[in-house]
């Protein structure tokens, strides 16, 4: 009896999971399909799902009109740069909060997270002015800095959670074995936290890759990443759905591929310590 119920429940859960999965995935699928349509077909009503004249015309137009690879390389530099810089700052910070917590550690963590609750637009003007006066507008280094700061609370929080799973005695053993603070972090803590660090790294690359608010507002030409590349297809001359879709597909493809290959690592990292 119990078995019958659990099978039915299993089926129900499976159906729900698939429904949610499809609902989330559908817009992406639609974007990809639209990118292979002509502009006329893209706005046709009723829309055709699979039976239309497949064309690569949008991709070649997009590449001709705006240099995909320049935007791509900007995206790579900005997302990897900000994530690596963030890790460099966050590893020691998370170490100290996880292993030598003070009276205010919890408050500091909460405070850091609270900065994520502020609408970014609230600080857009001051940051824009700062960037303008320091010559950081439309520079990659400027974006790396701003995205590092934006994502730092998340990086610190994630690492803090992973580090806390590492038994303190192992670090004490390292100290007894003659390891100074830096050796302890490099030879013992970091290797043990690799799964956690890797998933933090991946998640932050994805977040920075997709970050649109700051990248759109603080860049114009030189440092413009793929978000700006997409945005450039949704304006002055009207909407070009097919070209916009082609640009979007080209922008999400690299991160989708990275995500696909690292999904095991991501899941393992995100559930680190949940199961022993």
């Amino acid at each position, binding site marked *: 009896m119990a078995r019958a119920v659990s099978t039915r429940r299993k089926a129900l859960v499976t159906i729900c999971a698939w429904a949610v999965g499809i609902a989330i995935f559908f817009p992406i699928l639609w974007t990809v399909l639209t990118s292979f349509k002509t502009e006329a077909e893209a706005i046709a009503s009723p829309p055709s799902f699979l039976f239309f004249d497949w064309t690569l015309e949008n991709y070649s137009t997009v590449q001709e009109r705006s240099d995909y690879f320049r935007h791509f390389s900007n995206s790579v530099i900005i997302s990897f740069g900000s994530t690596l810089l963030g890790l460099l700052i966050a590893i020691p910070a998370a170490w100290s909060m996880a292993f030598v917590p003070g009276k205010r550690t919890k408050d500091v963590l909460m405070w850091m997270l609270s900065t994520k609750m502020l609408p970014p637009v609230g600080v857009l003007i001051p940051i824009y002015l700062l960037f303008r006066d320091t010559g950081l507008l439309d520079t990659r280094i400027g974006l790396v800095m701003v995205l590092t700061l934006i994502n730092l609370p998340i990086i610190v929080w994630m690492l803090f959670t992973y580090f806390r799973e590492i038994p303190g005695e192992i670090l*004490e*053993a390292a*100290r*007894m074995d*003659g390891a100074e603070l830096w050796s302890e972090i490099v030879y013992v803590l970091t290797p*043990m936290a690799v799964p956690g660090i890797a998933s933090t790294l991946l998640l932050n690359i994805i977040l920075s890759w997709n970050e649109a608010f700051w990248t759109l507002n603080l860049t114009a030409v030189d440092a413009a990443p793929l978000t700006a590349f997409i945005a450039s297809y949704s304006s002055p001359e009207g909407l070009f759905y097919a070209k916009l879709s082609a640009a979007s597909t080209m922008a999400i493809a690299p991160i989708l591929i990275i995500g696909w290959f690292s999904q095991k690592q991501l899941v393992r990292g995100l559930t680190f310590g949940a199961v022993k």
Partner: protein
Amino acid sequence: MGQITLNQITKSFGDVQVIPPLDLQIDDGEFVVFVGPSGCGKSTLLRLIAGLEDVSSGDITIDGKNATEVPPAKRGLAMVFQSYALYPHMSVRKNIAFPLRMAGIDKAAQDAKVAAAAKVLNLTDYLDRRPGQLSGGQRQRVAIGRAIVREPAAFLFDEPLSNLDAALRVNMRLEISELHQSLKTTMIYVTHDQVEAMTMADKIVVLQAGRIEQVGSPLELYHTPRNKFVAGFIGSPKMNFLTGSFADEFDAATIGVRPEHLTVSQSDGKWVGKVGVSEHLGSDTFLYVDMDGVDEPITVRSSGEIGFRHGDIVHLTPAPDKIHRFDNQDLRIA
């Protein structure tokens, strides 16, 4: 060398003082065991010596040098943890070599020392395995190996055997004792198991609530416990305590008699009681005897097999020179 002196050290966590001012001298080459019930501060005391906790006041001297402010890495002590605390991402070889690597010793010398330690500890065949692939006893040996290679001034053991099963515990106990015989290095060993303390120690430090109750050799503690706490803690099975008219007769508030110092007879003796539970081990027989006017059953240990069973009336006689007398402060009356 490995002489350690604790001078008036205290430790507080917040407002709670877990170690009141305490003095202790540990001589070079001694095997010292800190023993006491859980929460008595024995592990904290060890961690203060290791430098893993800072003392709240007082001084720690190692080999004549003030080490109070010296970080653990620089104290020249090695520690074996209860959880073994091996580095899970390193092979056994790298685990054992880690302290040498931290000390900047060259690769060839590292390999030679690791090989020597592995040989002593029977780990040669396991050097390329990860700690996760080893049994509890092997892991413990790796932890000891990691401590040996750095040739420390003293070894600190924090309940190293409590995660092992009973048979293995006895083996490892012997191995650690043998190691002490051959290395002649100071060892400080924390345990809550008084059998480990009795069998391994040159000197036992009995702790309760952060205070030292008594320091002495195992037999000193066994024969002349300074107070009722030490008397009850050292020795297995536990000492029997009697009060009231039983103690009055000896001019004491409490008297204590060890189970092995009671003779049991069917016909005559000093005290009368009824056998509750009897445990027959072959080598020994333990009788738990209920007596009028005594709250807890009196434990009697007789060597060999004696035929008393549940419900039998027995007569007990304490060996007159083995009766411990305590005053109303629970202190020993000489």
